[in-house]
């Protein structure tokens, strides 16, 4: 699996990148400041670094420069994360050895594409594509039966969110206190999560069952047996 190191001091950015790259099949490690990011990059085995420009302790530019100076990270691809207002700093980033940059707020899909362009597609996903009976990956050609169940799981998760929000708003208007609302939210999300997990397991079981069915061509190829 391709491994990506994320160095960003904003937890909202880190958690979304971790989620999206994880979903795309990458293994993601996150650090919050320049020093920790540099240490992780040098000691870890990463295929790419996503590096915020404005970091505590050591700036993204300084981290990039250090990475290029270090023998184990000299060729490690680096993508800078920057705000539009900092685009002037990108030139300094390239001078320090960055390979690419993405302007925040960026579309997570765009980020995944940029990461794949430099780190290559995650190996895990390639394995899934060739695995018999497994679901087709996003954009894949053949749809396994499990895929329909996965779609149902996604739709269930998606559609239940606004219903839950409306119910919570109604309860809040009726005078429910914060603790009650928090408890109800936890309960609803746990229920939804359990339901989605069950559907995911069902999808896997369906795919396995289909994979276990003998392929007709094989029987045709050996007449008389």
């Amino acid at each position, binding site marked *: 699996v391709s491994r990506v190191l994320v160095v960003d*001091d*904003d*937890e*909202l*950015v880190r*958690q*979304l990148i971790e*989620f999206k790259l994880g979903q795309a099949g990458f293994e993601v490690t996150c650090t919050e400041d320049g020093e920790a990011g540099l240490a992780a990059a040098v000691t870890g085995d990463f295929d790419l670094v996503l590096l915020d420009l*404005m970091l505590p302790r050591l700036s993204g530019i300084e981290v990039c420069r250090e990475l290029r100076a270090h023998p184990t990270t000299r060729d490690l691809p680096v993508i800078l*994360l920057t*705000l*539009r*207002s900092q685009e002037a700093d990108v030139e300094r980033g390239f001078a320090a050895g960055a390979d690419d940059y993405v302007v*925040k*707020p*960026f*579309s*997570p899909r765009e980020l995944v594409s940029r990461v794949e362009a430099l780190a290559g597609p995650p190996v895990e996903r390639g394995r899934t594509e060739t695995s018999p009976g497994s679901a087709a990956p996003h954009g894949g050609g053949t749809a396994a039966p499990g895929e329909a169940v996965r779609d149902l799981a*996604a739709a*269930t*998760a*998606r*559609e*239940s*969110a*606004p219903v839950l*929000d409306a119910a919570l708003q109604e309860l809040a208007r009726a005078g429910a206190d914060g603790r009650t609302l928090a408890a109800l*939210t936890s309960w609803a*999300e746990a229920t*939804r*999560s359990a339901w*989605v997990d069950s559907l995911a397991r069902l999808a896997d079981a369906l795919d396995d069952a289909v994979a276990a069915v003998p392929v007709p061509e094989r029987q045709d190829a050996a007449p008389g047996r």
Partner: protein
Amino acid sequence: MNPARVNSIDMAGELATLWRSASAVALQRVDCLRRALAAAERDALGVDLRAAAGVDAHKLAGALGMYGLEEASDLAIEADRAVVSGALDHADARAELAVLVERLADAIVEER
């Protein structure tokens, strides 16, 4: 949460859960901006709160758009620019920033 928006950013269950916790952090950052504005209004804005407001405005500008919140993202970028250009130190600009911050809070709450 607006169902159309949910579909437009493909916010499935996990991402919706992610946004729920993220929105609480985003609102804390908005509160920091409010506190800085209130302190500046009293001519009592200290170095730490000023720095925190700058950092939080900057983070909001960078993060909200990634969650698909276009309006909130635009407002946050505008607020970040205002803070950087010294809006906290000038009464007129401060009043405009205060309006921006409240619109930003509304936009975040609307998407929760």
